[in-house]
């Protein structure tokens, strides 16, 4: 099991799922219609490190964070 959490303005509780790569996570999240508006604008961190490859493999206990568009300052 891995955990997916949604940061900042995305109003959604963390979810747990079975996934062996980020591509699996993508496929599962795309089933949720409330997330469609967010996914193309969001970046992804794996255990708090930014990642940029759908083939990134996941292991039990991993934490995937979904980061929507930012505006610090």
């Amino acid at each position, binding site marked *: 099991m891995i955990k997916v959490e949604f940061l900042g303005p995305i109003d959604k509780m963390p979810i747990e799922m079975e996934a062996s790569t980020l591509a699996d996570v993508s496929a599962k999240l*795309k089933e949720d219609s409330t997330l469609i508006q967010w996914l*193309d604008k969001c970046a992804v961190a794996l255990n708090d490190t930014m990642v940029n490859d759908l083939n990134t493999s996941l292991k039990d206990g991993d934490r995937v964070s979904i980061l929507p568009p930012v*505006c*610090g300052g």
Partner: protein
Amino acid sequence: MELYDGPLDIKEIFCRWLDEEAHSNYGAYIPFVGTIRAEDDIEALSFDIYEPVLREWFDTWQEKAKALGASVKMAHSQGDVPIHTSSYISAVFSPKRRVALELIDAFVEDFKANAPIWKYDVKNGERIYAADRSTPMYGSGLLA
């Protein structure tokens, strides 16, 4: 890197950073102070921060600065920051002027684009995500 609840005490931070590097033999110290402007009838801006990724982002910049013989610092607010108070200060220290001027520009611009901080307008006590002023971080769309 320093995070605070509510507005920053800019004077305290500026002066402390000046003292911290008083004998580091840097020739240039350039802070950037960001203050909440009164516009669109907002009472305040409000900020969410994801600290672990912000720390990674900052550490990467500290290494880039070190490679140039320079150093960076930053402080940011979490939660509500009323208009005409400050939510952000970052700074570059460098032996040389040119390096400092280029680094503060690159550092502040990358901060705006990639620091995991979310901004909300506060109007009538309500918190409204500033979607139109926000930027997708580097690598966005991976899961789309």
